[in-house]
């Protein structure tokens, strides 16, 4: 019998006890002996030349230990971007210098100018006001589609037209030919609004230099501590890897924003050696708004060509992607390789051509945010499909059906790199239509109309590429790293297990899900398994958690490690049971001689391995196995959402009255956790569609939505409960058959919501569909 806490069980989470009792340990909860506090002086200007900085008064202020500026930190290597994009003319992308503390210029409001280190946080902050910075304020370039305009100010003096790259993907000639024979062409201008990730835990860091060992420890809010260590060593040059330990303890949400290596942790770590004491920085929300990497911010024109029956013939897309003032750690790949290869959606599209111009502006850096490129692609294709269907008077569900990749066509090669592994798009759509009572919609619309309300329904059939990523494939596309994952399974002599993973959990529930894998594969109950993560001195080198990769890649590494344990255990069991190795079967935690009841539990084998008195010759003692797993392909989760809205035409307020999501994540390990991931993703997507918008003043470059007073975070009373369902089409190329579930909700929801809103009002409009914008769209007074 399968264990009750193994794969498929909605096991309640192991980690919850500490979080529910206030015993979680987040970075700011740590305090090091002798610790000092840091405050970063930030630029109040979007664009200014620094003529000089006088730190004299600040250094003399009470409690201040030291103040450093860009002139003091030249020994630190610049902040890097780890993915090289090549423009369509063959030239490499142009990455401007990105110093941890600004030297010549400041390039966005919130850019780092100086660090003040003092005995208390208040003293550091008080002293920062005493730093005199002589700024020569320059005109700023702020708006995405104005960055390349003639005469626009240059963010980096040496980078013409503020253009990092002009990149393309697909076959232009074939796409042009498809449009030439189109019976109908749908065209839309689409803005993908800029978002601020807003993990509720602000970023924080403690740098701690040990002069006796000549080594550093960094506590930091990271989704990938090993990557942080690698970058801080190899590129920032703070310390060699073996002299640097990075600890990412409990982390309060990431959503991508904690992948990156920022100025703050880099400088705190470096400064801890300069001042000879630990240096702690905890950001506040205002700083998070200014200086966490933002997400999205695309301006796109898309055209789609159809035959008379609605068959899609071709898709042409031009996108301007705002990269902000500097290239953040993975910024360059998000609007290119994480975006355009997903433009085929769930559809057979013979020809696709996409151009992406990556531009610099005097705004915060833009990088991966939940979904990272895939929500932007999904939004484009799904708005296009919905609009084309309506224009051609074809039911949007039927239009999708006609164009879906059929279930028997996998593996399916798109014209834009990807080979989809598996899926049942028709089945998923049908289940979504049933669960949403699509057939009953006209009656509901009429009932709303009778009350003076506008009702709309919208779909989003999304595809995503997860399980990031096959190393050789991404390497060929410019990635600077491999994207495999690691695991180590250590049996203790008493038979319980420590499972070490290179992944990092910050809400995903790995401590539970990964333990369930051990339960199923090794027969050790989950309460006998401790999952260790987040410390480079404890765990094997790993790439961390993002891109819905932890289970598909990290989980696969765990399976590999389990297989090695079983293989070794089989040798030991054969010896102890005096049987041939080939006759030993392993199941439910027991090694059994086939066809007999002679068996040894895996705990007995573990004990024998550590107390090898009666032990097979040539077998090493101990029971501990590591594995690395490099996927052979991306995974391709898919699904269909149906959103139904009701709009009050008097105020423009949109209420979501029904929301259905059917997802195909392949094999499911813990349905409860998966559904939770879906819920959270959906609300982030709803947030983008209806509420959230990072707005800079187009002239001054001041962030107008710099706090929760102005940036609308979804709250409990903004959203409904959801109806979610799962279809399981196993991934054919990883041992678990899993695809990943972390980003789906956020990828699909903007399109499903906006398709519903535009259905209700009968017009195209841009996100976010705030009440005033909807009201104006209805009443024809567009702003």
């Amino acid at each position, binding site marked *: 019998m399968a264990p009750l806490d193994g794969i498929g069980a909605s096991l309640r989470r192991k980690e919850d006890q500490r979080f529910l009792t206030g015993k979680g340990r987040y970075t700011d909860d740590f305090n090091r002996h002798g610790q000092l506090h840091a405050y970063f002086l930030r630029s109040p200007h979007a664009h200014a030349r620094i003529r000089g900085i006088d730190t004299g008064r600040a250094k003399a202020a009470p409690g201040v230990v030291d103040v450093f500026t860009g002139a003091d930190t030249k020994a630190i290597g610049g902040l890097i971007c780890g993915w090289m994009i090549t423009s369509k003319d063959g030239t490499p992308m142009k990455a401007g210098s990105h110093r941890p503390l600004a030297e010549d210029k400041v390039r966005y409001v919130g850019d780092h100018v100086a660090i003040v280190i003092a005995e208390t946080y*208040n003293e550091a902050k*008080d002293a920062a006001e005493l730093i005199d910075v002589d700024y020569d304020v320059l005109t700023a370039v702020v708006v995405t589609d104005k960055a390349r305009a003639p005469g626009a100010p240059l963010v980096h003096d040496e980078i013409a037209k503020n253009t990092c790259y002009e990149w393309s993907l697909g076959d232009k000639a074939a796409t042009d030919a498809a449009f030439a024979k189109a019976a109908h062409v749908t065209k839309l201008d689409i803005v993908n609004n800029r978002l601020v990730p807003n993990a509720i835990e602000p970023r924080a860091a403690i740098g701690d230099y040990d002069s006796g060992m000549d080594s550093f420890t960094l506590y930091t809010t990271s989704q990938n501590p090993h990557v942080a260590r690698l970058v801080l060593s190899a590129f920032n040059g703070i310390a060699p890897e073996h002299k640097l330990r990075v600890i990412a303890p409990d982390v309060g949400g990431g959503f991508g924003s904690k992948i990156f290596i920022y100025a703050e942790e880099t400088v705190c770590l470096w400064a801890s050696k300069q001042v000879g004491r630990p240096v702690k920085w905890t950001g506040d929300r*205002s700083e998070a708004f200014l200086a966490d990497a933002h997400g999205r911010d695309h301006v796109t024109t898309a055209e789609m060509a159809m035959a008379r029956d609605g068959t899609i013939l071709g898709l042409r897309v031009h996108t301007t992607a705002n990269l902000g003032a500097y290239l953040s750690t993975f910024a360059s790949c998000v609007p290119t390789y994480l975006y355009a290869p997903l433009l085929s959606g769930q559809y057979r599209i013979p020809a696709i051509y996409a151009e992406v111009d990556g531009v610099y502006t005097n705004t915060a850096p833009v990088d991966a945010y939940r979904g990272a490129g895939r929500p932007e692609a999904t939004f484009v294709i799904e708005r296009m499909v919905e609009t084309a269907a309506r224009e051609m008077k074809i039911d949007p569900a039927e239009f999708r059906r006609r164009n879906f990749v059929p279930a028997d066509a996998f593996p399916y090669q798109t014209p834009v790199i990807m080979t989809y592994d598996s899926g049942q798009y028709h089945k998923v759509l049908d289940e979504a239509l049933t669960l949403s009572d699509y057939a009953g919609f006209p009656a509901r619309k009429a009932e709303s109309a009778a009350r003076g309300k506008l009702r709309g329904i919208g779909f989003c059939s999304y595809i995503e590429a997860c399980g990031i990523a096959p190393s050789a494939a991404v390497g060929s596309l410019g990635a600077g790293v491999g994207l495999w994952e690691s695991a180590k399974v250590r049996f203790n002599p008493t038979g319980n297990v420590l499972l070490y993973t290179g992944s990092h959990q910050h809400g995903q529930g790995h401590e539970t899900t990964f333990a369930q894998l051990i339960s199923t594969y090794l027969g050790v109950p989950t309460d006998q398994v401790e999952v260790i993560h987040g410390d480079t001195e404890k765990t094997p080198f790993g790439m961390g958690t993002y891109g819905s990769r932890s289970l598909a890649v990290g989980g696969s590494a765990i399976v590999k490690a389990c297989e090695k344990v079983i293989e070794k255990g089989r040798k030991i069991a054969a010896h102890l049971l005096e049987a041939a190795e080939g006759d030993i079967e392993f199941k439910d935690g027991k090694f059994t001689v086939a066809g007999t009841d002679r068996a040894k539990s895996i705990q007995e084998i573990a004990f024998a391995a550590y107390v090898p008195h009666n032990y097979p010759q040539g077998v090493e003692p101990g029971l501990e196995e590591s594995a690395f797993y490099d996927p052979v392909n991306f995974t391709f989760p898919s699904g269909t959402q149906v959103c139904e809205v009701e709009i009050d035409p*008097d*105020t423009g307020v949109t209420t979501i009255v029904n929301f259905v999501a059917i997802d195909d994540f392949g094999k499911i390990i813990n349905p409860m956790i998966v559904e939770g991931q879906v819920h959270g993703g959906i609300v982030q997507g709803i947030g983008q569609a209806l*509420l959230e918008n990072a*707005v800079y003043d187009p002239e001054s470059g001041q962030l*107008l*939505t710099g706090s*929760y*007073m*102005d*940036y*609308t*975070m979804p709250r409990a009373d*903004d959203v409904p409960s959801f109806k979610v369902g799962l279809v399981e089409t196993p991934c054919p190329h990883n041992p678990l058959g899993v695809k990943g579930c972390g980003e789906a909700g956020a990828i699909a929801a903007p399109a499903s919501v906006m398709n519903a809103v535009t259905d209700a009002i009968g017009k195209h409009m841009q996100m976010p569909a*705030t*009440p*005033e914008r909807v*009201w*104006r769209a209805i009443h024809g*007074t567009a*702003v």
Partner: protein
Amino acid sequence: MYSFDYHKPASLSDAAALLGKAEEGKLMAGGQTLIPTLKQRLARPTDLIDLGAIAELKGIKEEGGALVIGAMARHADVAASDVVKRMIPGLADLADNIGDAQVRNRGTIGGSIANSDPAADYPSAIVALNATVHTVKRTIAADAFFTGMFETALEEGEIITAIRFPRAEKAAYAKFRNPASRYAVVGAFVARTGGSVRVAITGAAPSVFRWTEAEAALSANWSAAAIDGLSVKADGLNADIHASADYRANLVKVMTKRAVLAAG
């Protein structure tokens, strides 16, 4: 937050004395606006005088047919008060929709109106219900109290002690809230008291104002339909990233109608 000296006087006279002595003193009621302001270093008082321990400022009662609410009554207390619910239920509803539950557990009516935030809820009720603001020195009529954005008729050091509301026959508040801050983008309080109708609008302009056209229309015909024929000019209304002046003008009308419907 900059450093300051904290005081918690037990009486109004002690509070006045402390304020008089302070180089730059600041009174604190519930602190739900003041503390965030201090945290952002937008104010730098030398002395903070907490009114939280002064018994004279507390309490909600009926007095001579009127509702009297102590300046330090918390929003949650007003919302839950049987006296308020019985005498002016629309006022209890208003209090129940200020900020969030935690803000309502700390924020006070006196602090709210003394601050005169253009997007605060209470000013609309004070004006529409024709309340009287009682201070340590005098009483101030509602129409004279709010003098502009973050400005009131209060003099330096003048402490509000209570607000006296005449009992209304009909009263209700309808609020279109800022989805982020939950302050009022536009809030309309309508009241009929002793046959006289008042409509006070908050959020829409630099300070709360009476919509006299609506008052006339509702005096003639107390129904939401009476508002239909009116129009609101956008001139002089607030405009920000959340709502333009045009949109606010529309909301003034929509929210007023909804308030009339709610008042019954």
